[in-house]
């Protein structure tokens, strides 16, 4: 069985060297269809994505807002499955050996696939980490521990409701990086206040040496800059996914400009994030 990679570690080490925050871009695997999705993912690193967070489509994404749920349903409608998601990663890995890919989703498709088989196939495909929203520390035996044992980082979400008492257990079996959800809510909703995020990130740093990525509700370069000043990475998802939705025709087929539009948006955000801390160093 292949072991986990050190791509996440290397990427954050490189970011530290550059003195800047990373940019995590979320897209759903197979949205709007397998081929468009592949072209998009393959082009994301050149557009400035440091890490790709790839959604595993699920019919009932309870912690996600309408944008990500719709993207899941588009992908499923066009025949996406977990098996095909792993194949998509394997295809991406043929030409990109350095950009970390983190899979994000819900437990049922993985449980249905079989936990052992899934970990084996994800590692073989070149997956670098897992985010499974409905597996809190209380359910670590299900996937988190077996994945960690196999060398596949299980990336945990910490939220504003994660109190001092819980934080140690949330941080305990986390690897790769820690994902701070900046609002109590669903993806694509309101965004957190910069001051609150600053305090929260400081609180997390007392408990973990891991890099901290912050997401939920980031839609503009200005917001991304705020995050990039305090966190090790900023995650943008719903805004990207919305752009995919906006560039489909009535039949759900992608328009000719879809990929360009999404990549332009990603480039703009990436540029802003890269410049975010330059002012501070002067």
């Amino acid at each position, binding site marked *: 069985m292949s072991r986990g990679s050190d791509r996440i570690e290397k990427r954050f080490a490189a970011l530290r060297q550059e003195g800047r925050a990373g940019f995590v871009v979320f897209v759903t695997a197979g949205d709007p269809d397998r081929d468009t999705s592949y072209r998009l993912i393959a082009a994301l690193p050149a557009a400035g994505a440091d890490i790709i967070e790839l959604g595993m489509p699920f019919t009932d994404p309870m912690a996600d807002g309408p944008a990500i749920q719709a993207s899941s349903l588009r992908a499923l409608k066009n025949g996406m499955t977990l098996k095909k998601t792993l194949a998509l990663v394997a295809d991406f890995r043929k030409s990109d050996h350095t950009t970390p890919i983190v899979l994000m989703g819900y437990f*049922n*498709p993985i449980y249905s696939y079989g936990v052992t088989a899934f970990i084996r196939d994800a590692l073989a495909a070149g997956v670098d980490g897992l985010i499974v929203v*409905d597996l809190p520390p209380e*359910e670590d035996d299900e996937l988190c521990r077996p994945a960690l044992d196999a060398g596949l980082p299980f990336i945990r979400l910490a939220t504003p*409701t994660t109190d001092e008492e*819980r934080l140690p257990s949330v941080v305990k079996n986390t690897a790769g990086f820690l994902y701070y*959800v900046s609002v109590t809510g669903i993806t694509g909703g309101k965004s957190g206040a910069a001051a609150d995020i600053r305090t929260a990130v400081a609180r997390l740093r007392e408990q973990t040496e891991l890099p901290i990525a912050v997401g939920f509700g980031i839609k503009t370069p200005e917001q991304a800059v705020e995050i990039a000043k305090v966190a090790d990475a900023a995650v943008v998802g719903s805004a990207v996914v919305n752009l995919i939705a906006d560039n489909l025709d009535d039949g759900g087929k992608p328009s000719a400009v879809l990929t360009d539009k999404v990549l332009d948006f990603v480039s703009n955000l990436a540029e802003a994030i890269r410049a975010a801390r330059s002012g501070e160093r002067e």
Partner: protein
Amino acid sequence: MNNPNSYRTGPDEEGRFGIFGGRFVAETLMPLVLAVEKAYGEAKADPAYRAEFDDLLEHYVGRPSPLYYAERLTGHLKGAKIYFKRDELNHTGAHKINHAIGQILLANRMGKTRIIAETGAGQHGVATATVAARFGLPCTVFMGARDMERQAPNVFRMKLLGADVRPVTSGSATLKDAMNEALRDWVSNVEDTFYIIGTVAGPHPYPQMVRDFQSVIGQEAREQIMKAEGRLPDTLVACIGGGSNAIGLFYPFLDDKNVELIAVEAAGHGIDTKAHAASIAGGRPGVLHGNRTYLLQDEDGQIQEAHSISAGLDYPGIGPEHSWLHSVGRVHYTSATDREALDAFQLCAELEGILPALEPSHALAEVIKIAPQKPKDHLLIMNLCGRGDKDIFTVADALGVEL
């Protein structure tokens, strides 16, 4: 796990019934779920909480509900002696009020000031809107847009009770999607909101909590049949969607091994078609809405749409304790089709002068199948858990009658 000494010891500390149950929720909700568990543990130990619950059940709901000997139906079927546990006579017309009261009292204890709920047929939504009005708390009910169409009277009822009824258009626009939306609302309003779940599903402690509140049905039935017949019943029958009325009737009898327990799932157009809501007959274990349980799903683990003529049974899962009771063989899970439920509905109206809800009409369909094969001294109790007034439009439509 086979042949445990008692079937009444679950769940364990992790909220598991065997491999089923658990707490599969996002981190944002986890502290809240733990807080509900702690508050419920304290409430259970507090005699004042129990006293208030009992008092409201007696004077507000109208409990105990009668155990009624269905004499003409018994004569018609020429077999087992059939009793109805008449929870359709409760205030609001179904058993859902039992757990709505238990949960809103807990919300009060926790200092929560806003109530949310999901609803399928609208019975749980009506029950929740009712107790929210009774306690003066604002209430939002999430309901599938499709269910709102087929249960228009209940939608209006909820609005009269002051609830904000939010149509859910995502997914299949039925109960599972309403539950997704309710969970999303809860995640976004964790500080002030209490989620009153409408069945024995969801993350621990909900399956246990709702079961405890509904167990009043079985406790009463036990006393009532002892009084009427001087012995325990031979068979209990209940319909099952999520399974709150079934577990409520069964739970106090789980360790009486001579009492046969039968739960009836909704077979829709038939188990061999894709259009049914029978999670045990047509599903396999998976994880959804906070717990591991039997689910209708495809090979990829994607949740499938359920179908039943009864909106209250139209859910692709089942409470985790039922999955466990199935796995250990204590309860027998069977099913009835839309057609069989409709026939039972009409028979009950004609013979007993009772319009049953389409949900317990499924249980009645099973009674119609098995009663004739039983001897005359065979005591059978069926949970008549809801009244059918809300369903007359659906029934009229199915029978091709224009109102």
